[in-house]
């Protein structure tokens, strides 16, 4: 127990140690978080009217980001499957980074839901009267928290075992890994069912919503992992095999293709039928009754995704990173603003009130993203030294001398053995 507490203390101290680039990054993120906290306090005082949401468009930027991040969290499993099911040992260590990312993404998603609540001080009501199993939101609460605990357990156990320099026991983590694979699919399916079960919103009331969510998540999540691993490769001396990038790239390419196909399928069903249900899709793609606010967004998303798909097939690493950035942005638009907001326009009574996030809303959103990146950076900051054996229980902790993570630029280093 004492060793565990020491471990936690060392992790805490380690997160404050790094070179000037680390401090600059963390300071930048902290500034954004503080702006976000400030904006959220304003929202607590004045209510959700500080956002751009209205009775007509009652879910907006926050829920859009929540949806996107739940998908990203689910995509951690895309590294787990090749490693544990296909026994790809080379990628073994990288599973941790995927799962740590899942932890950060789930925390971000839960923060987004919390800031979207009108009465966050009544959170405990969820524990006292829980409309399970009828309300899909209750399912979402359960699966998201369960997923967070699963990933914390797996990562925590593996990292702590590395710290203690002992072989992790299969029975303590392997079953949970397999549960996590299924659970990851379920978190995003449940989130999709939140939307697709509503008969009053024909834009969402479609069976293809859940597959679309999963496909776009499995494209955007591994893309983010590719970017993280590229950052690791650039800023630290942690070795990332090229095979990792290629495996992830394959996943992204296939998932993106499926996602675009499903988007096309949705568009066909809406526009060919041309019933009154097409109003929301018309608003999104073409504009409705002269209101066209979302039209440039969705077409940019389609353009970005298509270009990313082309670039992915080129199989070159720098191009791969550009493709990943493009498709993350494209999927964020398509899934966030392009999925949540159009369902509210027009309203079930045919009124059109457009939605744009306000400055306050954007500050809170950026604050939460910064908090998530902060958490992720800290988790990676801790994990890399532990996994590379530089931070173990039998070594004295000298924070100032930790070289593992933030060595100088690789071009200047020599190889010393």
């Amino acid at each position, binding site marked *: 127990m004492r060793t565990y507490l020491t471990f936690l203390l060392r992790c805490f101290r380690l997160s404050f140690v*790094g*070179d*000037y680039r680390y401090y600059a990054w963390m300071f930048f993120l*902290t500034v954004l978080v*503080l702006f976000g*906290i*400030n904006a959220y*306090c*304003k929202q*607590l*005082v*004045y*209510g*959700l009217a500080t*956002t751009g949401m209205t*009775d007509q468009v*009652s*879910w907006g930027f926050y829920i859009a980001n929540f949806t996107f991040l739940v998908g990203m969290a689910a995509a951690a499993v895309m590294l787990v499957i090749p490693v544990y099911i296909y026994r790809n040992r080379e990628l073994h260590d990288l599973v941790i980074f995927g799962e740590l990312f899942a932890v950060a993404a789930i925390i971000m998603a839960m923060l987004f*839901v919390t800031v*979207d*609540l*009108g*009465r*966050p*001080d*009544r*959170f*405990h*009501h*969820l524990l*006292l*009267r*829980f*409309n399970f199993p*009828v*309300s*899909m*939101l209750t399912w979402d*609460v359960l699966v998201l928290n369960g997923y967070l605990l699963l990933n914390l357990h797996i990562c925590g156990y593996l990292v702590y075992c590395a710290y203690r320099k002992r072989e992790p026991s299969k029975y303590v983590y392997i079953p949970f890994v397999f549960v996590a694979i299924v659970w990851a699919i379920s978190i995003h399916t449940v989130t999709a069912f*939140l939307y697709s079960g*509503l*008969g*009053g*919103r024909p834009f969402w009331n479609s069976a293809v919503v859940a597959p679309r969510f999963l496909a776009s998540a499995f494209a955007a999540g591994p893309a983010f992992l590719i970017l993280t691993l590229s950052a690791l490769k650039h800023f630290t001396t942690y070795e990332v095999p090229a095979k990792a990038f290629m495996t992830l790239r394959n996943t992204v390419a296939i998932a993106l293709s499926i996602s675009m196909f499903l988007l096309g399928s949705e568009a066909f069903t809406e526009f060919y039928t041309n019933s*009154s249900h097409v*109003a929301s899709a018309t608003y999104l793609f073409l504009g409705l009754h002269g209101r066209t606010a979302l039209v440039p967004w969705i077409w940019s998303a389609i353009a970005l995704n298509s270009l990313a798909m082309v670039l992915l097939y080129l199989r070159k690493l720098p191009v791969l990173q550009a493709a990943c950035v493009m498709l993350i942005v494209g999927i964020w638009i398509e899934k966030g603003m392009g999925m949540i907001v159009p*369902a509210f326009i*027009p309203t*079930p*009574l*045919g*009124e059109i009130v457009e939605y744009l996030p306000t400055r306050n809303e954007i500050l809170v959103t950026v604050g939460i993203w910064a908090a998530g990146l902060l958490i992720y950076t800290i988790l990676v900051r801790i994990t890399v030294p532990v996994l590379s054996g530089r931070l173990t229980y039998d070594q*004295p902790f000298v*924070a*100032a*001398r*930790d*070289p593992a993570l*933030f060595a100088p630029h690789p071009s200047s280093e020599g190889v*010393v053995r």
Partner: protein
Amino acid sequence: MKDLQIWNGPSTSASHVEPELTRRSFLRTGAAAIGGMAALAAALAPLRELASDEMPNLDQFLQKHYKEMSPAEMEQALERIRNKVEERYAVRPHLRDVKPMEGVEFAYALNLSRCIGCRKCVHACVAENNQSRSPEIQYIRVLEMPRGTLDVEKGNHHYDRPTVPNADHFYLPVQCHQCASPPCVKVCPVEATWQESDGVTVIDYDWCIGCRYCEAACPYWARRFNFAKPNLPKDQLNPNMSYLSNRPREKGVMEKCHFCLHRTREGRMPACVEICPTGARKFGNVLDPKSEVAEILRTKRVFVLKEEVGTLPRFFYYFDERYPNTLDPEALAIAARLREEEGDSYGCLPGAAGPRRDFIAAAKPAWWIGENA
């Protein structure tokens, strides 16, 4: 060492430990920590604008769900609300918890041939139910629909004419239909909304967490959210309140039409029904065969909106046999022509024969099969 070394390089000997803490680094770390705390405090600064009655309150925190409160706990909650209303509005309200009547299930019928779109129902509801005036919350939305369609997308919510009704249009007011299979009740994660035995779907304003899932789920756009602190002028407060209906709400909770249950559960009519000048709105106990709504459901061709969604609303619309709001154009044309031709010597007196009756007889349409054909 003049330069600060954040990283000292690899040590040649594991036992050589560089001193971690110098005075400068201690001061610097301390300054960063204090600066960070100051920044955090500044970030939290807007919270000082919170009004005193919006501060977290232990009583409200521990208050139970409506269905779980004992009568004593309910009285305690009511007393707390009375005090709060008195403090904010300087009026002692008549606040109580009104229970449903036995053997009563409400239904609502709306005669679309009689609604003229005057919107008195909208504003009577606002006057009765203590909604926020700024931003303005209205439970009822009246649509001006062109003739021949029920596609609400073709409706106009924002008509602003010198007079209503507008020719070739009919008016479709929509409010909460208190559906028998309510999607809003299905999706609420904390069971803050449910349907009572008399058919009214109610909200416990002290239990709602403001997630707005119900607002997304409603196919009739009937639910409203308090995005800002409700702004109700003191002189417009209606002191006749009940716990589940029109007591003043706070920011961050949902609200909607509740069939004025503080009135209807005591036999009175909802505000919208009472104010409607044409009698287009009908309300009553559908289980009573002699009530107006039962008569309407039996004798008129009623329909509901968006029946395909399966919500089973208890709000029925119907058209009467006359075309709304205009006289029959044929009769008008005949009357005008008769006045022109015959002056004032035509009439409907029996036995008045002559050219005008033949004229009227001749004006019958070709398909008329009757005695005087």
